[in-house]
C-alpha cells in the first residue's frame, strides 16, 4: 500500500524527449517503474529508452491506458501541457517544471479543482513508493534505494532535495518509507502538506509521517490546525528549516520562491510552536529526527495492551 502512486499507476511523460526527462525515464525504468508513453509535439514515432513518443496526449491515450502524467516541459509551455492533460482526464498531474508564471498556475489549479484532478507541484521533484518500486519524477535519481527503502513512514517535503535527505534519515533510524511526496517549493501548489497528510491518515501502511517545513506560507500552520482538530492521528515528526531568516530583514526570499516572511507571517518559530502545541514531535536539529523517529515508531509498533 502507498498513497498517490503504486504499481498500478499508468504513467505518461509530457516533454519526454528533453534532456532531464529522458534521463529520468532511464532511471525510472532501471528502478522497475513502468512508463507507458511520452509526448513531445513533433516527435511522434520516436522512442525514448523504448518508451513510444506521441505528438499529443490524446494520441497517447488512444494507444495506452493512462491515469497519471508528469510535466517536464519548459515554463512557457507548462500551462498548455497541463490543460491538455486535464482535457484528457488525467487523474494525477505531477509538475516538475520550475518558474512557471504564477497566473498560469492560478488558472490550471482552478481548472484541476473543477475537474477533480489532483496536481502535485509545480516545482516538485516527484513521488516515490519504494514498496511498489514506483518512482515518478527525478526523485531518487539513478539510485533510489540509497535513500528510499520500503517501510512505514510517509514523507512530505516542501523541498525536493530534502525529500531524499528526510527519507535517508528515516533509513538511518532503522526504518523505511511508504510514500514520499515532494509538494513543490512555490507559493501556489496543487497539493498542500495538509492534503497529503489526510491521505497518509487513511493509508494503513503508513504509521508515522516526517514533515520538512520552511519559512513563509501558512502550510505548516494548516497542518498544526489539522492535527489539533483530529484530522491526523498518527505521529508527526517535523523539522522547519530557515530559522535564521527571522534574524534578517523581512520580505526577502531565501531558498524556494515561497520561502519569505512577510508582515510577520510565516516565521519558523511560530510554525514550530503551533505544530508542537498540536502534538507534533519537532526536531531542534535535523540530526534529532533520528531519535524522535525511533521513539515514535517504537511506541507505535509496541503491542497494544488492553486495560
Amino acid at each position, binding site marked *: 500500500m502507498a498513497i498517490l502512486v503504486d504499481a498500478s499507476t499508468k504513467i505518461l511523460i509530457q516533454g519526454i524527449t528533453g534532456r532531464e526527462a529522458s534521463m529520468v525515464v532511464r532511471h525510472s525504468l532501471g528502478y522497475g517503474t513502468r512508463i507507458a508513453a511520452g509526448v513531445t509535439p513533433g516527435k511522434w514515432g520516436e522512442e525514448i529508452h523504448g518508451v513510444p513518443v506521441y505528438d499529443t496526449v490524446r494520441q497517447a491515450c488512444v494507444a495506452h491506458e493512462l491515469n497519471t502524467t508528469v510535466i517536464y516541459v519548459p515554463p512557457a509551455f507548462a500551462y498548455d501541457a497541463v490543460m491538455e492533460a486535464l482535457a484528457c482526464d488525467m487523474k494525477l498531474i505531477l509538475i516538475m517544471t520550475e518558474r512557471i*508564471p504564477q497566473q498560469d498556475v492560478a488558472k490550471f489549479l482552478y*481548472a484541476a479543482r473543477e475537474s477533480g484532478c489532483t496536481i502535485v507541484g509545480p516545482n516538485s521533484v516527484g513521488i516515490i513508493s519504494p514498496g511498489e518500486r514506483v518512482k515518478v519524477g527525478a526523485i531518487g535519481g539513478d539510485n533510489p534505494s*540509497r535513500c528510499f527503502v520500503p517501510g512505514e513512514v510517509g514523507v512530505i517535503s516542501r*523541498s*525536493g532535495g530534502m525529500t*531524499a535527505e528526510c527519507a535517508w534519515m528515516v533509513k538511518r533510524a532503522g526504518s523505511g518509507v511508504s510514500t514520499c511526496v515532494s509538494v513543490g517549493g512555490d507559493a501556489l501548489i496543487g497539493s498542500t502538506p495538509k492534503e497529503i497528510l489526510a491521505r497518509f491518515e487513511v493509508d494503513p501502511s503508513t504509521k508515522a509521517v516526517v514533515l520538512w517545513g520552511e519559512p513563509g506560507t501558512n502550510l505548516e500552520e494548516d497542518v498544526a490546525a489539522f492535527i489539533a482538530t483530529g484530522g491526523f492521528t498518527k505521529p508527526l515528526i517535523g523539522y522547519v*528549516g530557515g530559522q535564521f531568516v527571522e534574524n534578517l530583514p523581512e520580505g526577502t526570499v531565501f531558498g524556494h520562491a515561497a520561502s519569505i516572511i512577510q508582515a510577520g507571517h510565516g516565521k519558523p518559530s511560530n510554525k514550530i510552536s503551533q505544530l508542537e502545541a498540536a502534538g507534533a514531535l519537532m526536531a531542534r536539529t535535523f540530526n534529532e529526527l533520528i531519535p524522535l523517529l525511533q521513539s515514535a515508531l517504537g511506541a507505535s509498533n509496541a503491542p497494544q495492551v488492553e486495560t
Partner: protein
Amino acid sequence: MARLLEAISKELLTSYGIATPKFRVATTPEEVAEIVACWRCPVVVKAHIPVGRRGKAGAVRFATSPQEAADCAKKLLGATVRHFPVTSVLVEERIAIGQECYASISVDASKRSIVAMVSTAGGVDIEEIAAKQGKLCTLTIEPFRGLRAFEARQLWVEAGCSGSLLRPLTEALTRLYQLFVGVDATIVEVNPLALNCERQSLAVGALIGVDDNALYRHPELADKVEPGSDRAWRPLTEREKQAIAVDRADPYRGTARYTEMDGGDIGFLCGGGGGSLLMFDALCRLGGAPANYSEVGGNPTEPKVFGVTRVIASKPGVKGLLVCINITNNTQTDVVAAGVVQALRDLNIDPTRFPTVVRLAGLNESVAARICAEAGIEYYGDDITMEDAARRIVERVRQTYLGLAVTQHV
C-alpha cells in the same frame, strides 16, 4: 516578485486608465524647488526606493513652498532608508482628499487563487485595516472569467460604499484587475485610493510587484525590473550581480543563487532550496558565521558552479569553504565537484591550507570523491549527515585560524 519603483507603478496605472496625482522624479533639491515653483501647489516629497512603509521611516515629507520642498529633498537624498540609499525623490502634488479607500488584486497562496480586496478605510497599513472586523472585503476571482464589473460593484457595496462613490471605485477596481493580468503582476495595491472633492478616484499610494518568471512575455518591463531584487533586503551588491550574471548565462540548466551577508567568514555553497536553509541554521547554531547564503541545484552546469564558487570565495574575509548539498536526485555531484575545484584553482586557493569541506552524495558521487581527493579536499559522501558537515567546517576554521584543540572525528 520584483517590486517596481513608485514612478513606474504610477505610469502603469495611468496607462490602464487609473488617474494619479501629478508627479516627477528628481535627483537634486534645486530640481525639486523648480518643480514646486512651477506647480504652485502643496507637495509630498518621497524617497524613491523600492520598499514599503516609507511614511513610518520618515521618508515621506510634506511641503508648501519650493524652499520647504528643497529642504525635504536635502534631508532625504543621500540618506539610507530601510537599507536602501536614496538617490532620487518623487515629488507629487498633494491633493485635497475627500475619502481614502483601499483596493488590491493579489495572488492568495492559501486560497490558491487571485483575490480582490477593498476597504473604505484606506490610508493605513493593510494589517491595520484587516484588524478592524468587517472593514476588509475579499472576493476570490475565477481566473478564466476575470473580474466582472458587477462583481467589483458588489464588493464595494459590501464594503459599505454607495451613491456617487460607487461608479468611480468600481471602474478603478476593474482596471486594476486588467493591469494585474496585463503585466503579470503578483500584487497591485492602491492605498490610499483617494476620492478627491470632484469624486474622482486617484491612486495616491501604489505598489506593483511583477512576476519575475513571466518577464519573458513582457519586454516592455525589461528595463524597469531588476531580476533577483526579491532575494536581497538592500540594493544588490557587485558580487550578487556577478552571481546573477553567472546564473543567467545558462538559464535552462540548474540554479545558482547568492546573497551576501554582512561580515562572516565561512564561504557557503549549499543547496538546494531546503538544504541551504538547513545548513545556514546549522552553521549559526554551531557558532559559525556564514559570509553569504547560496543555493545551487537542479543539476547546474560546471561553468555555473565554477562561477558562483568564484564569487563566494572571492569575498574579502572568507576563511573557509563549505560545500554541502542534500543527497541529490538529479544533480550530478561530479559536475559540482569539478566546478568547485576549478574555481579554487582559478583563485590560487590551496584547499589543503584553506579549510574546505565538501559533502556531496548522490548521482556520480564516486567521481566527485575522486575529483576532491585529487585536489586535496576533505570530502564526505553520505557517511556523515549535513549537520555533521557544518560542524566539520566550523572546527576546521577554528583549528586553522585560532589553533584551538578540537575533536578529530565527527
